[in-house]
């Protein structure tokens, strides 16, 4: 830095600019900036995932052609595999009766911002649908009959989904076998607990926990009987008022690529 006389004014002007940006952003006046940048970055992010399958060789034309053909076929196979996976996911989802297929909007996961692959579990995911597709904050997100999370933040074309395993997640649930009710709470790092269950209620390892229904008048929230997961452990202290169970979700959030939003219309 050349001199403190130049440094200080630039620094304070910069700080002022940041506060100005925050002010405008809080009132939603900079939505166009967010949309254009996220469109560019997430678009480029998709390009990074395309496998490099082009081979080059300068020796023989025939080998060149064969290699090009091979590369094209590999690309086509990779493309087919993606379509097949999407097709299977869509078929599985739309064959279900709960939730009703007409209420589902298929979306693609384009980012897992809080994840280091194979080190930490995603707390939230970014999907390629936003306000333009009619999505609003609080809508439930599912994968087959299992709860995935809720829409937490939105731009015109993208949304941030807080997963059911995140610490921000909490809703009423019940044990399908015994009918015991309690509160499903995300613990972060892929863990869920079924808490506040009365000591007199029975819980069993392997039991399925489903949502009890937490929709509001506008239809936002989880409808009843969506699967949360299965009980893998029970913590029961005779001197405590409640017992608690550890629940394992059936959705592989670190690898899944497609989810479905319950739009309610």
């Amino acid at each position: 830095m050349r001199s403190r006389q130049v440094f200080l004014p630039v620094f304070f002007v910069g700080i002022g600019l940041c506060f100005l940006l925050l002010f405008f952003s809080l009132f939603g006046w900079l939505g166009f900036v967010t949309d254009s940048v996220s469109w560019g970055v997430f678009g480029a992010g998709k390009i990074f995932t395309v496998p490099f399958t082009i081979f080059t060789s300068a020796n023989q034309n025939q080998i060149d052609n064969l290699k090009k053909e091979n590369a094209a076929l590999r690309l086509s196979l990779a493309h087919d595999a993606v379509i097949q996976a999407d097709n299977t996911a869509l078929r599985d989802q739309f064959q279900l009766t709960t939730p009703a297929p007409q209420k589902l909007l298929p979306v693609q996961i384009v980012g897992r911002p809080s994840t280091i692959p194979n080190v930490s579990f995603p707390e939230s995911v970014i999907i390629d649908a936003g306000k333009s597709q009619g999505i609003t904050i609080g809508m439930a997100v599912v994968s087959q009959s299992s709860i995935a999370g809720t829409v937490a933040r939105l731009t015109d074309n993208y949304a941030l989904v807080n997963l059911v395993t995140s610490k921000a997640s909490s809703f009423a649930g019940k044990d399908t076998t015994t009918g015991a009710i309690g509160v499903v709470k995300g613990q972060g790092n892929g863990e869920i607990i079924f808490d506040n269950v009365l000591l007199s209620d029975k819980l069993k390892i392997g039991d399925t926990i489903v949502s009890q229904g937490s929709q509001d008048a506008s239809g936002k929230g989880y409808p009843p009987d969506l699967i949360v997961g299965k009980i893998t452990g029970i913590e029961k202290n005779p001197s405590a008022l409640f017992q608690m169970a550890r629940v394992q979700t059936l959705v592989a959030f670190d690898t899944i690529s497609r989810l479905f939003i319950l739009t309610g219309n």
Partner: protein
Amino acid sequence: MKWFFWILLLFISLCLEATVVKVPLVFLLIFLTALFVRKEWIFLAAIASGVLLDSVTFRFLGESSLFFMCFLGILFAYEKKFETQSLGFVMTALGIGTFFYALFFGGILIAEILIVEILGSVAFLLLQRVMSRSESHFA
């Protein structure tokens, strides 16, 4: 050419931080740039990078910029008191910076701090070597 390389690095860091990893790569880039390029425009670059980062991480625009500005302010304010071009300073500053970054913008992860420390140290040593080589070349 230097500008192009820097913008390319920023874009790659943005893409990775927004879609794949939680490691604060943009913060690391700003820090290393500030360490070697002590010019006023680094503040402008910090604000612009912060705005881009906020746009793709669903934060309010200006949050990251404010963090970067405060960090750079502290860094430049203390540059005469400490030997900023040393590995010890880089590791300490990065550790503290990443800790507060994780505290403000996400859960604290030891792995996150470790990755930034390793990446930052390697990049710092490489840049230092490149800088000293180019200086001796022009001497």
